[in-house]
């Protein structure tokens, strides 16, 4: 029925759809399904999905690395964090590695300014970053299958 306005559910539904996808994005089919489940129209779901930076409608890497570039992190050197990541992964912000494992994105505040600079990998937040620490994290992730 087209009456129920379950807008609250829609974010949870989209999140689930994205998490279940190997490439960390919401497929068109899932958007349509979400619309049906949430009692929203296609345009309404599309509006929500593109409003939050959390969601992507394009395929992304297995690991989405989101580096904070808000004030505190910026001051604490997020620029160099980007540099290290770009060099290590051989991609630019917004891109995905050729093997489909990593995507690098820029976001605003992750809510752990006391541990700036910080980034988030999928849903895990990592703070007090140094180039050394980043390389270690990447090594760990690369080991995982």
């Amino acid at each position, binding site marked *: *029925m*087209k*009456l129920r306005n379950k807008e609250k559910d829609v974010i949870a539904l989209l999140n689930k759809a994205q998490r279940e996808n190997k490439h960390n994005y919401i497929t*068109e089919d899932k*958007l*349509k399904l979400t619309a049906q489940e949430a009692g*929203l*129209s*296609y*345009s*309404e*779901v*599309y*509006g929500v999905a*593109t*409003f939050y930076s959390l969601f992507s409608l394009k395929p992304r890497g297995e690991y989405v690395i989101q580096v904070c570039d808000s004030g505190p992190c910026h001051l604490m050197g997020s620029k160099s964090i980007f540099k290290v990541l770009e060099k290590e992964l051989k991609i630019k912000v917004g891109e995905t590695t050729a093997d489909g494992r990593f995507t690098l994105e820029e976001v605003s505040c992750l809510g752990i300014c006391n541990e700036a600079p910080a980034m988030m990998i999928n849903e895990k937040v990592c703070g007090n970053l140094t180039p050394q620490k980043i390389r270690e994290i990447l090594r760990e992730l690369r080991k995982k299958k």
Partner: protein
Amino acid sequence: MNTVNLTINGKLVQAEKGSTIMEVALANGIKIPHLCYEKGLSIAGSCRLCMVKIKGRPGMEAACTTEVVEKMKVITSDEEIDEARKLIVELILSEHKHDCLVCESNGQCELQDLAYELGIEKIRFPVSKSIEPTEDSSQVILKDPNKCILCGRCVRACAEITVQRVLDFAARGSGTFLISGLDQPLVDTDCVSCGACIQTCPTGALTEKLARFQGRSWEFRKVQTICPYCGVGCQIELNIKNDKIVKVYGVEEGPDNKGHLCVKGRFGFDYVHHKDRLTTPLIKHNGKFEEASWDGALNLVATKFKELKDKYGSDALAGLSSAKCTNEENYLFQKFIRICFGTNNVDHCARLCHASTVAGLSRAFGSGAMTNSIWEFEKADVILVTGSNTTETHPVIGNYFKHLAAYNGTKLIVVDPRAIELTEYAEIWLRQKSGTDVAWINGLMNVIINEGLYNKEFVENRTENFDEFRKVVSKYTPGKVEKITGIPEEKLIAAARMYGKADRGSIVFAMGITQHTTGTDNVLSLANLAMLCGNVGREGTGVNPLRGQNNVQGACDLGALPDVYPGYQKVSKAQVRENFETTWGVKLPPKEGLTVVEIIDAASKGEIKGLYIMGENPMLSDPNLNHVREGLENLDFLVVQDIFLTETAELADVVLPGVSFAEKEGTFTNTCRRIQLLHKAIPPIGKSREDWKIIMEISKRMGYPMAYHSPGEIMDEIASLTPIYGGVHFDRLGGQGLQWPCPSREHPGTPYLHKDKFTRGKGLFTPVDYIPPAELPDEEYPFLLSTGRVLYHFHTGSLSRRSKPLDGIAPEGFLEISPQDAKKLRIKNNDWVRVSSRRGKLKVKVKITHHVDKGVVFMTFHFAESAANLLTSDALDPVAKIPEYKVSAVKIERI
């Protein structure tokens, strides 16, 4: 206290509590600049242009979101406010494609006007917008994203008026943009091309695609008139340049449409200028039409009819009037037939749609029309819609229903064999087997009586024959009803409780109820149901047949029927007849005439020799077309008066070119009995003539001169002879029109019928038993065929199929079939199949859909290429003589 006193710019004004500063200002003629606000839509409060100062409050507040309070002092403009507004407009302009030179909205653009009013000579910011391509996938809408100012009005119009929710904003911040669907081209979305978004868009971001470069706002002559398509009777404003209609807007003051239109009303007008328009009379010589002079054609028509009358008698002649023509024309037509032909053999296509309504409701209540008004639906708690695919057939009303269900908490009960759009908005959907309506309605009433939910007081005081009726209803237990109708017991009970408990319940129906051999029984049953629950004679209640054609209500009211004169006055009553004889100055035949299907029958038997058809197309609209052709071909003389050479006109001996709605004056009566004025917008095309003038010419030549100078004069005569139209005169019809009964000049008209007393005195309960349809599927013809319409076409398509956008959107007919049956027959979507019945066969494309149940197929009847009525059965309702279009048996073969 419900009023509030405040001052706006020092002026003392009074306002209703709860209204906003914007509303109060507008009501008092004080202009506050705004872009995102529009009357009739929800409030967004996003553009901030309407900022005003309120004494005692810091800063500025948005007038569109701030409620007025007692003693409020509002300033709507000063240097600081204007400066702030300028800044906003400049920011908008910095992201705008400055294209006014060739913009369709030039001269009626709210952004342009604001820039001018605020005196913005130069923009302080760099104009920095990358140019995006325009989107023109829709047949009717052109979207230019570069002119979108993100006011959101179209988003809200689409969601709140049409309730399609096609449009929204994507992304955020400065990257925000307008999308349709999943950022798809409009044509791939659920857009129904209603154009509400265009009408509300303040800029040139959304415009009429076909009006491009056809004229600018200041060049248009504007004429208000009535939509020529359906019975909703939407008021429209034609925008005309060089006698050509370029654009149409919905009239906001229109009492029933409030500015809203559907795709046909807004975009389907171009048939008026179609190259196929008949521009001169035609006479058939040796099977071929040749152009003729008016005199030649009219003389021939009059001579031939006179000859046939002399030779075979009056009853060998007949006339079919038109629900597309005006009230005045229908009045003249039946007058002409009754006087010059000397017979009551006059009928029109109402026979095919709501004859059973008129018969049923007249019997139960005393008046055969919609009891309540369109605007009253918002007062109902429960609306029971049955046999009406409202969103396609009466779209503006259908959209009200969606709106009420989605935003107003109104509960919809839909009873329909097909899954229609409204079933998605229904609290309860009962899917009955076609043709079992009496059974489920009796079942509902059985539950309502057993559970004591009926209105005893109403039944006692206002109705009669309850006990007889009750006896019959008591047999229809939910269990028994489930067996007949297929509606599960619990669902029937739930629906009965929902309708039974409602304070105001409204019943809405259309062809799904009427087009059965039990059509009159079905209508009587609905009338029983309404009376049982006391749902008659109050606002927001009633039994509401939605009439199909723009003026089918009027054609009935004005006596284009074989048994009644104007105002449903019985031909068979001597006193009534005498009254007409005195006024018209002739003797009138006392015998009731033949109905549409009977006329065709009589023609094929050679009993009817001459037929005059005005604006009807039985060669597509009537059941069992092969039989219709036989009948028409068997005539000695056939005259067809129309604006196109229709399938019927092709069979004529003489064709007379009438005019379209845009070329004439007169009135139409809409489905809720509202008589509205039509204004002549352009001169007749070619040598075509107004239909009322043509009738006068033939009448004169047959020895009965008529001397009306205008339709207004005809209406004065109608008023003198027709009590329900007694107070209707053209000078009273501006704006809101009048709803009949309107017995005298002083009478304000009647929004709802049967208040305190039924037209016939007491409401009459009629015991009705279930009778199965005349023809049911069997081994040879295993499918049940039902017929109906689509949104984009009207009736036999003689108008809508000649509209470029309408035919562009829906160019062909189809057969709906369930996935299960399609699988069994091994057919795929868009495959061609042969469909045949005992009466005829045709080829049509297949559309596989869950909308129809197993064993049932559905076809539209608009398309001559796949004319559904070749198949339909001409079995008639014994009382109303309406054919059973909704049930016939067919077989389907792959080809």
